[in-house]
Each structure stands twice: as C-alpha cells, then as structure tokens.
C-alpha cells in the first residue's frame, strides 16, 4: 500500500509526469496510426457492403468510434475534475482541461459524420431526435468548459471552475447514452454490446474495434501533448520548467527567435 501511494505521488508530480508523457506520446500517436490504417483497410476494403445500406454504412468505422470517444472524453474529463476538486491534485486539473478539446473534436466529428450518414439513409441531415440533440448538447457542454477555462486569468482557478462545470454537466452524459433506449426514436439501438451478442458480422466488427482502439490511442496522444504544455504553464516559475525552457533555448533557437519577433 505504502509503495503504491509512493508510486502514485511520484507519477503525479509534474516533472515526472512530463517526462513519462514525453516518452509515451510518440508511442500513442504511432500505434494509433498503425491500428488506424489497419482498421481503415479492413473497413473500407475488406468489409463487405451492408445488405440494407450498401457502402454508405462504411461511415460507421469513424462515426461510432468518435461517438464513443466523445462520451469517453467527457467521463475522463469529469473524473479528473472530480479528483482535482476533492484532492486538489494539480496534475488532474491539467489532465481534465487537456481532454476537453480532444473530446470536443470527437463530438464534432460524430455530429458531422452522423449528418452525412443520415442524409442518404434516413432522408434528412438532421432530426431533433433524443440522441442527436443530446450529442449536440454534449458539444455545447464541452465548448462551455473550454470557454470558461479560457475566460479566467489564473490558470489553476480557471481549471477548477471549468472542472466544476464539467461535473455539473455530467448528468447529461447518461442521458445521451440511454436516451435511445428510453425513447423509441429514429436512431437505431446500439450495435456493439458489451454483454450479449453484437448484431454485426465479424468481418465488419473487427475494423470497427480496431478503429476504436486507434481513436483511444489518438485521444491519449493529444491529451498527453496538451498536458505537457499545461504543466509547463501551471508550473511556470518552478526549477524543472526553467531547465526545460533554457534547454529548449539552447537547442533550435532560430525558429524560437522568429516566433518571438512575430508576436
């Protein structure tokens, strides 16, 4: 137990996490690209056309993983915000705020690809159905969190306030997920089920799952990248940040100098 808490403290300290994140990040991006290419090959080339929807169903390979990531990102953000507010852990504040833009991107993709899928299949770009509406509300919640975070000067206070808002909005996420079961609406039920058989054939399922893995890895890649920057920002005056800043200065100084002159 003692070793575990010690290990946790070590991992939670900004300099250690900064170093580990820097090491993990390329792996996340790289593996995301590899699994993504494999999943896209499986989805676009290998998988057969659907019996009802023909080739249009191939949007599923990005739509559904993105929808999962939109929800997952919100849960990840809210969980970190909870930890940050209760135990006042700096790393969690930064992690929560780092996951908001990534989650918002995936939610945006879900809405746009869903719209592009709905037009040929349902006959409409958009319908005010429970699931679509709550996905839109999810995007607005993300934007509210990001907006609040950028509106407050003090970084730590901003992260706490925005994290609190994320926790207030978390009630919405179960509504998004279960609304399709509560109201009988246009949107079909869940295809892939954790328990019980999925109503999709294996040749279509494995590319979908590969894409889900790829989007998860990608999500963590961008979250780690943003967290590294966020840690530098929050710990601005600390020694370890100073070392990194000066080390970076000693390296490729020419582009940095031009950057400064632009600003």
């Amino acid at each position, binding site marked *: 137990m003692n070793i575990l808490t010690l290990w946790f403290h070590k991992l939670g300290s900004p300099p250690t996490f900064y170093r580990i994140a820097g090491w993990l990040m390329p792996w996340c991006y790289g593996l995301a690209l590899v699994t993504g290419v494999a999943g896209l090959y499986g989805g676009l080339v290998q998988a057969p056309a*659907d*019996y009802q929807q023909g080739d249009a169903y191939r949007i599923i390979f990005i739509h559904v993983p993105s929808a999962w990531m939109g929800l997952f990102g919100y849960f990840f953000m809210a969980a970190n915000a909870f930890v940050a507010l209760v135990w006042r852990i700096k790393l969690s504040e930064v992690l929560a705020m780092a996951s908001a833009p990534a989650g918002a991107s995936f939610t945006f993709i879900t809405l746009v690809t869903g719209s592009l899928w709905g037009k*040929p299949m349902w*006959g*409409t770009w958009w319908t005010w159905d429970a699931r679509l509406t709550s996905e839109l509300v999810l995007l607005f919640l993300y934007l509210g969190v990001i907006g609040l975070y950028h509106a407050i000067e003090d970084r730590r206070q901003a992260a706490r306030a925005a994290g609190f808002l994320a926790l207030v909005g978390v009630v919405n996420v179960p509504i998004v997920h279960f609304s399709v079961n509560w109201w009988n609406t246009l949107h*079909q039920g869940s295809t892939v089920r954790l328990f019980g058989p999925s109503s999709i*054939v294996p040749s279509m399922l494995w590319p979908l799952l590969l894409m889900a893995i790829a989007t998860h890895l990608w999500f963590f890649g961008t979250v780690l990248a943003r967290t590294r920057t966020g840690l530098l920002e929050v710990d601005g005056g600390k020694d370890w940040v100073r070392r990194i800043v000066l080390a970076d200065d000693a390296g490729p100084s020419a582009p940095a100098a031009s950057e400064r002159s632009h600003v």
Partner: protein
Amino acid sequence: MTPTRKRRLIVVSLVLVAVAIAAGLTALALQQNMTYLYSPSEVDAGHAPEGARFRLGGVVLEDSIARSTDSLKVDFVVTDRFHQMPVEYTGILPDLFREGQSIVATGAMQGDRFVATEVLAKHDETYMPKEVADAIDKAKDAHRVPGDTGG
C-alpha cells in the same frame, strides 16, 4: 457532535430525502406513457389525437407502394402486422424507403387516410452483407418463422 459533523449529517439526510422523493416521482412518471409515435393499431383504437399532427410508426406493407407517374405523390400502407393504415405522401423519399422497412411518418389524419408531411426511414442496428441477409431470410422461410422486420 461537533457543528461541522452535525451540518454534514443534515446535508446528507436532506439529500437522501430529496433523492427518495425524486425516485417516487420518477416511478410515477414511468407509469404514464410517453408516446413518441403511434402504431396503426393505436390509431385504430382511437388513441391518436383527432385532427392534430402526430407521428405514425410502422413497417411499409409489401406490394403496397403506388407511385404516381406525373408527380412525387406516393401512396403506401403502414402496418404493425395487426392493423393497417393507408398513407399519402408527396415528396422525395429516403433511399432506405422500401417494402418491409420501418418508417416514421409525421402528419395528420384526413378521413381514414394519414397524410404525411415527412417520412423518415428507420434502419435497425444490424449490419451484415447481402448474402448473409438472404441466407437468414431463406432459413426463416424454410422454418416458416413469421418475419420480424420491425426495427
């Protein structure tokens, strides 16, 4: 008891009471029916509002689609396998609209016909290649299982 503990106790018990009341109200709400769409049987039984707009849900009956030659008008029959409802619609139908497909139509009754202003196709959550679907249909025919085309 210290004041902070007492306060915490009051807060927790208040939250519990509120949740209990809310659970009771929710249970009461779940007993009411929240209708999003009506099936032809419900319309036949007189549950649907008279003269007002509502949504009709069901399956397009086989061999019932009659397209007008000179306009976009389409007549078809929506069924829930118990009752049938003739539907009239003018406009462009979605690609998935076909016989045996679940649809949601918005409109109002005019006499004994349902005049739709919008028809949306509802597809189910099953994805499979055409060959597999054909094989399943064949197996169903062989065993004389009533086809469950509803989504």
